[in-house]
């Protein structure tokens, strides 16, 4: 079961002409720092929701987390666009984001372009809050903004021009105007997608709604069984409201009684964060950056057994990065009876060109288990 069978990232961040062939249901990405592993996940995230400007903005800022002092959108967004592959000292022009692939026998191509524009600040002189950056523009003064064009091409079969349809949206965005998706033109996303970063379990509040989904989905007992690997005294997950107004997720704990989930360790929070993301992308794509983050090696097999089985049940295609051999070995171990569904890609960048060395699950298993070689 694969939703995306093949993907070529012609240009996105530091990726140039990277082709990922024969994607499996479970896909691992390894490689040195700055080889483009996280960029691949971000590219897939954009690709799955091609006309979603909110996704576009969130990917541009995904590496910052919910921190204060974020860089402005007019700065973060252009960095998603690949720089011309042969830049001279005076020419650092940006190319368009261009990602194409094969999704359920359909060729899908995603293109994003931007240009700098100036707009009259609609909030000039007002106090700006939230994600907007504090400015002191005068009424009528022009401010810097970006015109973004998101384009989505669809054609049947491997012949790229057969039944080609194109849909495009244009947005003007800056840090000072509210970004809106034109509702009347909103199209369904190509695939539901969730990206879990290595810091989400620390920076993102656990959503009561998502936890409710876990509880009501009938997976609560499986989830509890999994969480007991981290703390055998956990008896249950409950949504409580100590002040009568705000619902808060709690663990029912043998020794602590009811305790807020947020006070427990990283491994637990990380696992719940992944579980919550998985629930949101049924029949879609789950992207996990640094799969091993916060999870002790001894707990990895338990967590991954649950994750792989949950992906199968929910028909979710998994893409995950890792730096850890223990994680690679644990993935091999828990997929040993379904190695045909596993693929690993070692990413590298040589002479400004991205490369991916593919390992089928069967080859990966024998390279690791028979030869003991490092594949990272």
């Amino acid at each position, binding site marked *: 079961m694969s939703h995306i069978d093949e993907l070529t990232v012609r240009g996105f961040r530091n990726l140039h002409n990277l082709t990922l062939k*024969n994607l499996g249901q479970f896909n691992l990405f390894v490689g040195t720092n700055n080889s483009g592993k996280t960029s691949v996940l971000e590219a897939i995230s954009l690709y799955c929701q091609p006309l979603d400007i909110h996704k576009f903005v969130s990917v541009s800022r995904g590496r910052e987390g919910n921190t204060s002092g974020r860089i402005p959108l007019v700065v973060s967004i252009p960095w998603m666009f690949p720089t011309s592959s042969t830049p001279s000292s005076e020419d650092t022009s940006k190319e368009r984001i261009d990602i194409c692939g094969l999704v359920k026998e359909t060729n899908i191509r995603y293109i994003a372009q931007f240009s700098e524009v100036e707009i009259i600040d609609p909030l000039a002189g007002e106090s700006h809050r939230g994600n907007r950056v504090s400015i002191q523009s005068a009424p009528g003064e022009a401010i810097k903004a970006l015109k973004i064009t998101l384009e989505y091409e669809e054609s049947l079969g491997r012949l790229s021009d057969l039944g080609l349809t194109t849909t495009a949206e244009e947005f003007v965005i800056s840090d000072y105007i509210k970004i809106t998706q034109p509702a009347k033109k909103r199209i369904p996303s190509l695939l539901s997608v969730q990206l879990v970063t290595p810091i989400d379990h620390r920076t993102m509040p656990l959503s009561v709604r998502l936890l409710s989904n876990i509880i009501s989905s009938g997976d609560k007992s499986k989830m509890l069984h999994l969480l007991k690997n981290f703390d055998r005294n956990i008896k249950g997950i409950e949504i409580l409201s100590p002040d009568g107004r705000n619902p808060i997720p709690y663990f029912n704990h043998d020794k602590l009684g009811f305790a807020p989930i947020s006070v427990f360790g990283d491994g637990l929070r990380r696992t719940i964060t992944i579980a919550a993301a998985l629930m949101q992308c049924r029949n879609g794509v789950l992207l996990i950056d640094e799969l091993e983050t916060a999870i002790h090696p001894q707990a990895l097999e338990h967590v991954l057994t649950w994750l792989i089985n949950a992906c199968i049940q929910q028909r979710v295609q998994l893409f995950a990065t890792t730096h850890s*051999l223990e994680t690679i*070995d644990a993935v091999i171990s828990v997929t040993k009876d379904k190695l045909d569904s596993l693929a690993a890609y070692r990413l590298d960048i040589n002479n400004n060109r991205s490369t991916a*060395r*593919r*390992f*089928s699950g069967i*080859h990966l298993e*024998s*390279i*690791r*288990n*028979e*030869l*003991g*070689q*490092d*594949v990272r």
Partner: protein
Amino acid sequence: MRNAYFAVEGPHDVEVVGRVLVSFHGAKRIQQLHELDQFWRRLIPSSYPPDGDLLKRVPVPAFFRLENVSVAIHSAIGDSQLARTLVRTLQNIDYEELSAIAIFCDADANTASERYSSLMLQVKSEFSDINLTLEATAPGNVTPINDYLRFGIHVFPDNMKPGSLETLLMGCADISYPGLLTGARKYVDNVCSSYKTAWSSSGRPKAIVGCINNILRPGTANQVSIQHDQWICPATLATLSSLQRLNTFIMELLDLP
């Protein structure tokens, strides 16, 4: 520095091919990890035991450095694993940077051509996800794959007749240790046949070489004697055609003067 990767059937082959490099071409065996070229680091096993089997050898290649070539000789632990070890390892290293790839195997009860053909089929069936086609014209021939890479299969004992590495070693012993060879042959041939019922076609030469080794280096494995005694030496090279073929094959493969 050019890089060459050899896949061989077992630890005795590693020592014979390595000894050819050391004795005839001035190669140095790399012992310390910090001396190993970065290119080969992925071949150093990072986990133990292989396949969860505590009795299995650690599948680490032997590394040799010549003036301009770095060579990894990888034992596949058995002929059935040769193609598998070769292809899996090529997949994991930057094979585009290799200047030579070779397989060393035994003909056993077959002719060299028969062994070569069956091995090529195995190699082709193992390839996937690698944009590389390995073809050689005949056993013992070194074939250019592209402008940079050469490939060949050497079938012991001599790229023609049935036999094994031990057939070649018996030829070496005939020159360096003729008395021991005669005695070992006599002893092995006079042993009760009930002990030989499970022998393969190469059982007799293996037993004879083992007997000689145990006189030269009591209590050690054959590899130790191959490393230190006069099996592979100028005298055997001067006389023994099968050793000359092996040396020529390696020289052509590595483009050695």
